[in-house]
């Protein structure tokens, strides 16, 4: 009797072929993108989205062609922070045009199309029970987005990842070895512990880990024009990957994020200089 592998094709359902077509469409869509970088952590609330947007801004200021894909479908924040809430999706001759920030960064974020008062929902034949299928559906959606938007010729496409060490690895598996990772931590042992787990998980695969950024590394007091401690931890993280820099917390930057104000308008502050330094380190790590 024939075995599974003796039979060519699947009798007409074409499911494997369709999955392969999706993969081809994604690869074609990203063919002119030089670098793919995922900004992750594993830990939530460490400033992945903020760093993603403002590192993109710093790199854009250097003349690089940059786009951001907000991969946090369930908690998208890039639309608000980048000022593309309510952006139109306009069909081009083949694909959908990417909404852009005032400084020319292409941004896809679910927050452009789903109001903050609503959650992303999928119809389900399984009457809920989303724990059995939701992650698969979200990755299929990611594939559709990658395959359907005009990414064009880019120097860098940055993925703003959702929290979760296991999710970080799932993105590595989905996007393949061509995507590199930049991890974000804060000066807290709890956060470093979670990031260390992400490093350990990613280290088992072929993806490059470019390094980590320590965010909220003190806070910038504008009155004193000085960086003051924010966390009590003084220990240097031992993550076994390069440190691309530290960025202090700045309430003004938080205000920029809430208001969708671009990096270009951030004054010459220690935070801006720190972001610039990290952007430079990131750039050099990609060469």
């Amino acid at each position, binding site marked *: 009797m024939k075995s599974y592998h003796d039979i060519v094709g699947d009798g007409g359902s074409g499911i494997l072929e369709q999955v392969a077509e999706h993969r081809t469409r994604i690869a074609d869509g990203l063919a002119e993108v030089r670098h793919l970088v995922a900004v992750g952590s594993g830990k939530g609330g460490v400033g992945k989205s903020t760093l993603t947007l403002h590192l993109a801004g710093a790199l854009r200021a250097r003349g690089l062609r940059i786009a951001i894909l907000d991969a946090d479908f369930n908690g998208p924040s890039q639309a608000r922070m980048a000022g593309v809430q309510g952006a139109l999706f306009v069909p081009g001759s083949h694909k959908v045009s990417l909404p852009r920030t005032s400084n020319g960064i292409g941004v896809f974020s679910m927050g452009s199309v789903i109001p903050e008062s609503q959650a992303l929902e999928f119809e389900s034949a399984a009457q809920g029970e989303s724990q059995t*299928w939701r992650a698969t*559906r979200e990755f*299929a959606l990611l594939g559709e987005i990658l395959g359907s938007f005009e990414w064009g010729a880019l120097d860098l496409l940055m993925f703003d990842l959702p929290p979760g060490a296991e999710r970080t690895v799932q993105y590595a598996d989905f996007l393949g070895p061509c995507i590199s990772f930049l991890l974000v931590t804060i000066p807290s042992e709890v956060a470093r512990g979670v990031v260390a787990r992400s490093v350990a998980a990613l280290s088992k695969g072929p993806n490059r880990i470019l390094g980590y950024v320590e965010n909220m590394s003190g806070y910038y007091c504008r009155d004193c024009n000085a960086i003051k401690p924010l966390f009590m931890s003084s220990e240097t993280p031992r993550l076994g990957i390069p440190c691309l820099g530290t960025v202090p917390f700045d309430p003004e930057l938080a205000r920029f994020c809430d208001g969708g104000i671009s990096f270009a308008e951030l004054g010459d502050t220690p935070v801006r200089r720190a972001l610039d330094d990290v952007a430079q380190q990131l750039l050099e790590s990609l060469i």
Partner: protein
Amino acid sequence: MKFLCVPCDTPMKLQSVGPPERGSLSIVYSCPECGYEMAMLTNAYETQAVQSLGVRIGPEGGTKTSDASACPFAAMIPGTEDGQAAEATPVRWTAAAEARLANIPEFVRPMARAGIERYARDNGCLEVDEKILDAARDFFGM
């Protein structure tokens, strides 16, 4: 998944896919040698697992059995086909503009359609053609 007609030792071919009924699909396979037919009846979890891959079940152009590629946001967007909130003034689409819209996946199509129609109305147009699409691209700096 593949099906084998054991007496003939021949791979069976997909014949038809019945529309989803309470989360179940009826997928009929037949043996090209002896004509024996069998139906795979999926449970809701199996249906959803395949739909979650974003694939069509069944031959291209055949029975549409899955809404996996339908817009998951349709119900959230005013003015979309599924949104039940059609705007007051209907906007026509030229064939060329429709063709461009058809180039994009279903999931994003209702959003694109609603947004473009709103843009057209705001600009005093009740017909979306390729000029309007290009103008919208320029307007939004794309």
